[in-house]
């Protein structure tokens, strides 16, 4: 579990994160949503220690990450896996070598054991026949899978995903979302996801934090979000006519007043 207590982060005069508190639970997909510039990425970078908050604490299973010395922080970081927006794969290494890199660095396993683990993880993310390819030779969706494989190869306790669906088609986005959700449940990982994707919000948002101009504006689940009365949240989430209609349908569905025979034609009008 990750507990964030009143963190604040600014750059010069500008306050980007303003006294945000949150609890990210184990075995759940915790989504951070918000418009561009709302402070999501800075918030996540504070969580993983790439930025030091000006104020407040971040507790990883009760241990204060912000007050630790470098050696203890390194130990926590070994339990963290992260999928970056652009995948951040090492260009000079093949897919297999990218996934093997954390094992090479942090384990004393034999080469055979490391290769076996790499194969297991690549199979888990359903990546076949790409082991010897370089990042430049594979598609965006495949890069994300490799990124996920690299992030989970050391069995992390915490998984961070920065916009895992950016640049992907809707179908691939769904596959990546499902994969992250399955891994979260399977290994009881605390997963934190930064996203703009409303599909992800509805499909895998076990817990959602809505950020607005550096503040946490709303918190709830994907079941609760459609009933939210928060105007800013509604304006952000249900920005289009199509999404507003979809929300109405989901509300009807959940209150038991939906006609199950209604199809997409009704929705599209």
């Amino acid at each position, binding site marked *: 579990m990750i507990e964030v207590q009143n963190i604040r982060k600014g750059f010069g005069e500008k306050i980007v994160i303003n006294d945000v508190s949150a609890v990210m639970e184990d075995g759940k997909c915790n989504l951070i949503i918000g418009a561009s510039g709302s402070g999501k990425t800075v918030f996540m970078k504070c969580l993983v220690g790439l930025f030091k908050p000006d104020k407040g604490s971040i507790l990883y299973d009760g241990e204060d990450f912000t007050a630790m010395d470098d050696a203890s922080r390194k130990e926590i970081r*070994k339990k963290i896996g992260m999928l970056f927006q652009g995948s951040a794969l090492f260009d000079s290494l093949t897919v297999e070598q990218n996934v093997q890199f954390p094992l090479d660095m942090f384990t004393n396993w034999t080469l055979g054991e490391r290769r076996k683990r790499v194969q297991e993880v690549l199979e888990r993310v359903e990546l076949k026949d790409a082991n010897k390819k370089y990042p430049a030779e594979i598609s965006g969706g495949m890069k994300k899978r490799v990124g996920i494989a690299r992030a989970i190869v050391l069995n992390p306790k915490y998984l961070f995903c920065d916009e895992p669906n950016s640049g992907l088609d809707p179908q691939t986005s769904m596959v990546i979302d499902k994969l992250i959700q399955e891994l979260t449940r399977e290994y009881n990982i605390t997963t934190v996801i930064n996203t703009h994707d409303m599909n992800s919000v509805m499909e895998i948002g076990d817990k959602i934090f809505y950020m607005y101009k550096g503040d946490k504006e709303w918190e709830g689940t994907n079941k609760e979000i459609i009933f939210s009365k928060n105007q800013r949240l509604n304006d952000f989430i249900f920005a289009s006519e199509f999404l507003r209609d979809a929300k109405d349908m989901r509300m009807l569905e959940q209150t038991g007043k939906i006609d199950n025979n209604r199809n997409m034609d009704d929705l599209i009008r």
Partner: protein
Amino acid sequence: MKFIQEFGRYILMLKEMFSKPENRKVYWKEFMHQCNDIGIGSLGIVVIISVFMGAVSTLQTAYQLVSPLIPKSSIAQIVRDTVLLEFAPTLVCIVLAGVVGSKIASELGNMRVSEQIDALEIMGINTKTYLILPKIVAALLVIPMLIVISAGLGIWGGRLAGQAAGIISTTDFDKGLLNSFLPYNVFFAMVKAYVFSFIISSVPAFYGYYVQGGALEIGRASTKSVVVSCVLILFADYILAAILL
């Protein structure tokens, strides 16, 4: 003010570079990779420059030595000392600042911009130790070797050109090479080689590591690192000559 800030940041980068490696084998592999990239990768251009540099030195020295009172073997002496004292260490290092320096700056800059450095940080790796230290140590090992090769090839190029142009026979050239040879000059050349190697590797690493922005900034950082390295090499060249000669 900006210069002081940048210099302070550079010193801090060098200080933070020294930490215990997470895994010696992986660091060794990276070090060997850098030795290959910097050494073997630059060997071709060093060979070409050195041979022509020596050859031109012989021709131009002969052109200026018009007095019949000066023995022909003096040409070899002048070529030897010019190549040893200045051409091999300084000229080659200025070329390497372009070849190796721009590569280091753009490689690290690209890693920074594409979040590969962040990915390593999150894994718990000291990125300065893993990415910068092997480059500097590799440069300190292989660039002096390249300078030695360059000095040898420069003198050989001069000998070859002297014979081909009918200016000086190989016997006279070899005789001249041994006349009034000062081993201290070799020591001086090696001191220069180590100082310049450090500049060539650490300055571009600094500019590449701290790049902010996108592709345009990587290009700018790469250019700036080459310019600053060249200026520092020339400045260090003067200081070393003033102190050691």
